[in-house]
Every structure is written in structure tokens, then in C-alpha cells.
């Protein structure tokens, strides 16, 4: 009964859908913290070339090598005497870029496939879903390894590899979402008006499937960052001495006995980034799904 009365009172306050989501998101401390972290990271990653002397990131100074964290070198220095703090800060560029481009790749491939499968059903759906099954039968990290082997290791190929290996996820999510809206009356109406399938999919169906896709996108950026650094760690993808976080960890692994701070900080950086994305993703999910409001 309380929910009934609540919905009555809610009718009186009208907000746009976006405003409603923002209203709920704002109240979620975790999501706002995550968002704050991400905004700072983006600001740094986008502008770093303008204010940071690259010498600080790549400049070697053997006399200063392997120093423990101190007031001059906050995160210590590596085996070449490079300052770990600036290397980790600079590394945010790689990780954020990889996370985003990778997820864009999986979105661009996965969403249309999922939408087509869900909308048309029948043989088309069967074919797409079976291929998806086959792709997801191979663990995604192995898929990444194979794709990097095929394409050769470079930053862009790493993005592609990580992106392609999470395509099945987006196909499934999109298909499931499309299935729930495809029989709605407004879709029937559009069909009755003789609109083309393409128009209906893009104008009527996908906009109503956005919530799960947006949530999944945020969470997938997080896991893409982890996958990419895992691949780098396995020696595929970005190689040391590039200051990508996974590569920093690979380089630090050699010195892990005695100089464990070399591994500590890049890992923390990955964790905080991923944590921020996860918090925003969780917050978005709670804000967008009225069923989950609690």
C-alpha cells in the first residue's frame, strides 16, 4: 500500500527521464565518488601533454635508480631511475583510451547483431546466437591472446582484441532487451504505419533498450581495462618500457623481491580506475531500473 500512495505523490513531481536518473544518481555517494575520480582522471589524461614535461616520464637517471617512495619521488623510482609517480599518472592515458575504444568496438559490433537477432528472430537469430555461443566458448582472455597474436602487438590491436572478445556480451544483452520491447504497442504502431525495419529498430526499439546497454557499457569499460592490463602482463599488447599500467607491472615483476612498490602503485591505479567505473555502473543501474530502487 505504501508503494501505491508513493506513486500517487510521485505523479505530482514531473521530471524528464534524464533528470530522474540524475536525481537518483546524485543521491548515490558511491556513484558520485566514482564519477568525481573519473572526471579528474579524464581531465589529467586529456591535458597531460600540455603541462607535463615528457622528460619526467621517460627520462632515465641511473644514479637515482630503485629508490623507495620518498618526498621527491612519491612512488619511488624504477630500475632506470624513472619517477614512478609520473609514469603511473601518464599511464592513465593508455588505460582510459584502451577501455573506451575497446568498448566502442564491442558496442559497434555487438549491439547491431543483438538488435537484429532479437528483432527478426527465427533463423537469423539462431545463426547469430550460435556464432555467439561458439565465440564465448573460448575464454575471453584466450580470445584476446589469439587476436593479439594474429594482429601483432600494438596499442590499437590490443584495443581491438579486448573489444572483440567482449562482443558476445553485448549481443546477448541487446538481444534480451530488444525481446522485451519488440512486442510493445508503439512498435506495432510503427509497423502498422509501414515504417522500415531499420527505422523501427533505430528509432523505436534501441532507444528503449538503452538502460541495460549503458549500464553494461560502463561495467565493461572497467573489465576492458583489467583485460588489457592482463594481456600486457602476459607479454602481449603493450610492452615495457611504455608506461601502461600492465606493462609497468610486468617490468616491476622482476624486482618484486625487495622493490615491491614498483608493483604496488600501478596495480592500485588500475584498481581505483576500475573501482570508479564499477561504482558509476552500479549507481546507473540502480538509478535506471525502477525495479531495483531500494
Amino acid at each position, binding site marked *: *500500500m*505504501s508503494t*501505491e*500512495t*508513493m506513486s*500517487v*505523490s510521485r505523479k*505530482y513531481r514531473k521530471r524528464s527521464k534524464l533528470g530522474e536518473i540524475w536525481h537518483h544518481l546524485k543521491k548515490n555517494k558511491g556513484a558520485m565518488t566514482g564519477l568525481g575520480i573519473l572526471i579528474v582522471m579524464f581531465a589529467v589524461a586529456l591535458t597531460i601533454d600540455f603541462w607535463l614535461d615528457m622528460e619526467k616520464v621517460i627520462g632515465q637517471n641511473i644514479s637515482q635508480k630503485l629508490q623507495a617512495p620518498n618526498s621527491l619521488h612519491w612512488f619511488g623510482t624504477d630500475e632506470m631511475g624513472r619517477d614512478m609517480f609520473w609514469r603511473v599518472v601518464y599511464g592513465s592515458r593508455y588505460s582510459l583510451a584502451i577501455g573506451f575504444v575497446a568498448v566502442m568496438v564491442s558496442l559497434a559490433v555487438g549491439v547491431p547483431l543483438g538488435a537484429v537477432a532479437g528483432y527478426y528472430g527465427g533463423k537469423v537469430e539462431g545463426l547469430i546466437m550460435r556464432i555467439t555461443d561458439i565465440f564465448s566458448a573460448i575464454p575471453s582472455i584466450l580470445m584476446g591472446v589469439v587476436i593479439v597474436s594474429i594482429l601483432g602487438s600494438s596499442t590499437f590491436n590490443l584495443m581491438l582484441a579486448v573489444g572483440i572478445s567482449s562482443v558476445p556480451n553485448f549481443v546477448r544483452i541487446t538481444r534480451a532487451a530488444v525481446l522485451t520491447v519488440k512486442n510493445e504497442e508503439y512498435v506495432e504502431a510503427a509497423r502498422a504505419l509501414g515504417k522500415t525495419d531499420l527505422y523501427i529498430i533505430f528509432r523505436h526499439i534501441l532507444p528503449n533498450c538503452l538502460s541495460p546497454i549503458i549500464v553494461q557499457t560502463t561495467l565493461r569499460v572497467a573489465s576492458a581495462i583489467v583485460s588489457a592490463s592482463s594481456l600486457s602482463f602476459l607479454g602481449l599488447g603493450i610492452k615495457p618500457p611504455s608506461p601502461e599500467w600492465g606493462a609497468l607491472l610486468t617490468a616491476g615483476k622482476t624486482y618484486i623481491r625487495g622493490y615491491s612498490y614498483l608493483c604496488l602503485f600501478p596495480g592500485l591505479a588500475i584498481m581505483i580506475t576500475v573501482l570508479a567505473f564499477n561504482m558509476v555502473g552500479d549507481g546507473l543501474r540502480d538509478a535506471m531500473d525502477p525495479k531495483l530502487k531500494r
Partner: protein
Amino acid sequence: MSEVRENEKTVDDSLVLDIQDLTVHYELEDETVEAVNHISLQLKKKRILGLVGETGAGKTSTALAILNLLPNPPGVIKSGSIRVCGNDMLKLSQKELESIRGSSISMIFQDPMTSLNPVYSVGEQIAESIELHEDCTKAEAWEKAEEMLQLVGIPKERIHEYPHQFSGGMKQRVVIAIALACNPKLLLADEPTTALDVTIQAQVLDMMCDLKTKFDMAMIFITHDLGIVAQICDEVAVMYAGRIIEQGTLREVFNHTKHPYTEGLFNSLPDIENREAELQPIQGMMPDPTKLPEGCAFAPRCPYAKPECINTPQKERSFSETHKVLCSAYDDPTFRIRREEC
């Protein structure tokens, strides 16, 4: 449990239920829903009380408060006392409450589709209640569960079946069997027939009346269907915006209606004798339960309302020992509502 009852022997023995000044609020993050406001209600043995009102009037909250089962948070009982067979439901320990629920008092919920646990067989769900409250073995409990099933008109062979194998009406019968399994003194029936087809409604209703006589229990029948009230109830209480605005015997409330809202309810019923007559719905909407006025919450919709109605707190007025009305209009001794004039 029997000792608890003895300690409270001072209370009138014939009262199964005695609610005094009950107030229930739902305290949400940024607002408070005043669901039930200062209601008092008594019910004697073997009587049926119809609790009438529109959706959101506070009927279900009242029933849940009687069981002390309000979802908390956000539900809070702000004031009042509730006695069931002499036990003060708001002061008992959790354990004592558990022993009373299901044995002295039980409840039937509105939606039979969701009120049965889908992963346990109906037999198990009936027998569980018996095992909890009666000193018996598992086998005896199941035996009694079989009896209960037959009593509500379900062949006992179906005892091992699961809720999804039953239709809506059958499920409600199972819910009734669970509620009656331990011969409660008081049954709270929260719109038990609303979710059912009309033909099934009549069957279930007939069965409930039969069982009520058989088990000698009192019943609160929550509904918004005045037809059902006329059919089965001895007493009626009409709720609006969390208050009981009129209560009395069936005859008093139906034949000597005093409150303008009750009158409005009758006017919005179709007239069997005069099918041409237009329905007269009550204009407007229920007030926002988070912002109830000081005075009469019905005033904005009331055809008799005076400007002061909305600000002056109403006084309860008795027209007989049982007939009580909450309306300031009767401050004017000549006031009559239209229904009474003709």
C-alpha cells in the same frame, strides 16, 4: 501463551479485537506518509466487520498493524494499542508474537498469485503452520493439512502439488486453508476476492462464510465492494485518508448513512432499479497522504463542505451506541445529508 492471556484478564472478554488510537506512518527518505491516523475499532466474538474504503485509504496498513507485521522500515506505529484476544500486540516479544500469529489471528492476502511460496508444496505450507502451533507430529500435521484442503474444496490427492499447478481461485482456497489451519479467533481478510474472476469470487465468498460459522471466528473483511459488505458483514467501518470516518452496524451505515463520503460511495454505485440513472462519481482525488490537512481530508471533494472544515479538527459524534461519525457538519443540529432527506 495462555499465561499471557491470563495476565491481561482485565480486558472485556467478548472483545476479540480492540484497537485504540492507532496511528501508522511510513517514514520515507524525504517525506512521511500518514497512512493510518488515530483510529479506534472494536470487534466482538464471531462478528464480521467490513472495512471499506478506496485504494490507499489505509485498510491494509491497519490489518498489517494488527498483526504487527508492518514492513519496517518504512512503516512505523506512532501511537495506539492493539489487543487481540487480550494480548497487546505492540508490547509482546517477537517470540510471543510468532506464537499468536497463525494460531489466534491469521490473515488472507489480496493476491493469491503471489502469496504462496512457489518452491514448497501446498501441503507443506499448510502443515508448517500446524506443526508450529500445535503439539503434534509431522504425520499428524500432514493429516490435518489434508483435512483442511478438503474443507476448502480441494481434493486431498493434490496435497503434494505446487502452487503453480493451481488456478487463482484454487490458490486462494489454499491460502484460506493455511489461515484457518489452527482455528484462529480472528481472521483478517484483505480483499480476498478482488483478484479473482466474478464467478470464482462468489464461490470463495460462500465458502468463507460457511467456514466462519464452522470455526466460530470473528473476521475483518477488507474490501471496496459495498455489495459484498451488504451480503456478509455485521458491522461496517468506512476509511478515508487513514481515518475511520463512519462506523456502525450494517443497518446503521447502509440505511442511516451520515457521512458525506459514505453517501458518495453509495451514489457511485449503479442503481439496479433505475438503470437509466447516471452514476455520480465522487469528484476529485484522494489527498496526498504526505500532506494531510489539519481538519477533514475529504473537505476538498465534499459537496457540503464549509471553508472551516479543512482547518478545524473533526470531533467524533455518536448517533447511537455503535454508530459513530467523523464530520464537523453535524455541529449544525439541522444538518442532514441528501440521502437521509429522501
